[in-house]
């Protein structure tokens, strides 16, 4: 029971991060391997605001989100759009995008190392116990999960109820046909990419309240988010949330009962099972 709830709390935050990546990969069609670095940057911002000015991370996200949005939008327009234009095929774009965002990831790590050094960063925010259904949990984990749920819910409403959200989903389904019904694909792809980056950075700010981050942990989060997105089905919001919760539970389970050093191995186990049995995602339909 204890494991289940801790897992769900962790999974809630994972859902937010994976949602960001899903917006970028599923909707804007860019496999962003620098995603985790934006998460760490968001975490660093929260750390910095908290230690320098005692600003609550829950308020910091309102600064982090627009900044990350702007930065990701710039990355898309300046660096990725030329690649989209240059690519002769989808496969070519995929290879280019992977190499570029990978390069970007290393550059960001390099810059963060230069700015903050290679130390671990953690601060104590809301590190109080809270009792839920007879067991005690850390308040910061609960707060982060609740905030993640609120943001995920908002995103879901936006994607399903507004015109821009629906257009973005149309692009996710078929970019070519989306153009035929008058959707401005380049503009909305940039929007989806930027929004995805903002969501990830917010997730980073929330996660930094209870996890210790250092400049080079980004890639681990990228991997986990990728596993979640693929498990949930690319472009599928509901699948992403379910997959994130599953991964959160499995990871907590492995970390408590076997060894905390095996969390990635746990994520990979899920990944392999999905690839072997349901490569189209949990709720996806088979297209090939």
């Amino acid at each position, binding site marked *: 029971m204890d494991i289940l709830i801790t897992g769900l709390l962790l999974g809630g935050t994972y859902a937010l991060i994976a949602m960001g990546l899903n917006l970028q990969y599923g909707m804007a069609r860019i496999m962003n391997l620098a995603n985790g670095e934006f998460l760490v940057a968001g975490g660093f911002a929260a750390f910095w605001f908290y230690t320098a000015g005692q600003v609550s991370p829950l308020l910091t996200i309102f600064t982090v989100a627009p900044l990350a949005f702007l930065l990701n939008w710039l990355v898309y327009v300046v660096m990725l759009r030329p690649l989209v234009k240059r690519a002769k095929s989808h496969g070519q774009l995929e290879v*280019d995008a992977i190499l570029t965002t990978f390069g970007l990831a290393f550059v960001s790590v390099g810059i963060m190392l230069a700015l903050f050094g290679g130390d671990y960063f953690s601060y104590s925010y809301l590190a109080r116990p809270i009792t839920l259904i007879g067991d005690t949990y850390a308040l910061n984990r609960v707060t982060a999960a609740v905030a993640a749920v609120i943001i995920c819910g908002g995103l879901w409403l936006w994607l399903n109820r507004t015109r821009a959200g629906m257009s973005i989903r149309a692009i996710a389904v078929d970019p070519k046909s989306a153009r035929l019904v008058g959707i401005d694909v380049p503009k909305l792809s940039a929007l989806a990419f930027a929004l995805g980056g903002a969501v990830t950075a917010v997730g980073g700010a929330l996660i930094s309240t209870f996890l210790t981050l250092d400049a080079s942990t980004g*890639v681990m989060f990228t*991997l986990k988010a990728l596993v979640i997105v693929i498990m949930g089905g690319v472009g599928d919001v509901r699948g992403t949330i379910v997959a994130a919760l599953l991964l959160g539970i499995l990871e907590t389970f492995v970390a408590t009962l076997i*060894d905390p050093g095996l969390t990635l*191995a746990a*994520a990979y186990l899920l990944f392999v099972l999905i690839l072997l049995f349901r490569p189209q995602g949990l709720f996806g339909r088979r297209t090939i």
Partner: protein
Amino acid sequence: MTLTKRDWQSITLSAVLLAVAACLPLTGDAYMLSIGITIAMYAVLATSWALFSGPTHYISLATAAFFGLGTYTTAIGIENGLNYWVTLPVAAILGAVLAALVGLATLRLSGVYFVIFTLGLAELVRQVVTWGQNISGQKGLYILTDITEVHIYWQLLVLAAIVYLTGWAIGRSRLGFALRIIGDDEEVARHSGINTSRAKILLFMVSGATAAVVGSMLAPRYIYIEPALAFTPMLSFLVVIMALLGGTGRLWGPLVGVIPFTLLWEAISSSFPNQTTLLLGLSFLVIVYLLPRGFVGLIESGKRKMREREAFA
């Protein structure tokens, strides 16, 4: 198989170059030798990487996983009384098996899954090895052999020769032809009756086995190994950069990238050790935006321009 005059020329040229390279230890300069080993190691790794990733465009980030597997095979083998020379083929087999497993899980699907999977593979194996050591209460392993740097260097050169010959043979075989079609258009390849998964997995196995053997050859150089050292993810990224920087369109392409990049890397990591990640990132960006076909592409378009100019004159 008939060899044309051009084939003989390139074989002779390669043999001469290899013989010259083999003379490097005779200079007696320890620093030169150590750089030579690093270059030979990356040359083998990058070339075998390009054998698979060049024609198929599947970017493998798993070199470190295979390398570490090889290192550990040799270390554990020697500790349990095996002869060093026996551990090399064992490492090759294990590398091929691991590659086959990864290939079976991911190569049937689109390229992205493969990239993601290989990205975490080294970390995964590292976590499992660390966990295994935690259980058995061991921290690292000592590798004590009478193999010196010169031996390692020569072994790597022999391996390089084998890799080049294999690559050359594959390029002329049905398998190589099939891979080039897969790289151009996988759909077309499937429709013309090529078993695409089998071809990709086979070549990935060659690549994985080679990286594992390199790992075991270098094991005696480390003397003491622990998971973080043997499975350093940096190795995978460096191999990708060097191969792409040189260009994967030609068999000798990666070598053209390996030599300058190794020297640059050595220089940067000795004088600005904190900026290596930045350099790594910038290299990726340079490759995508400035050198999409690597140095080979640069050389070949230069040649074409020369020829055109001659035609006009």
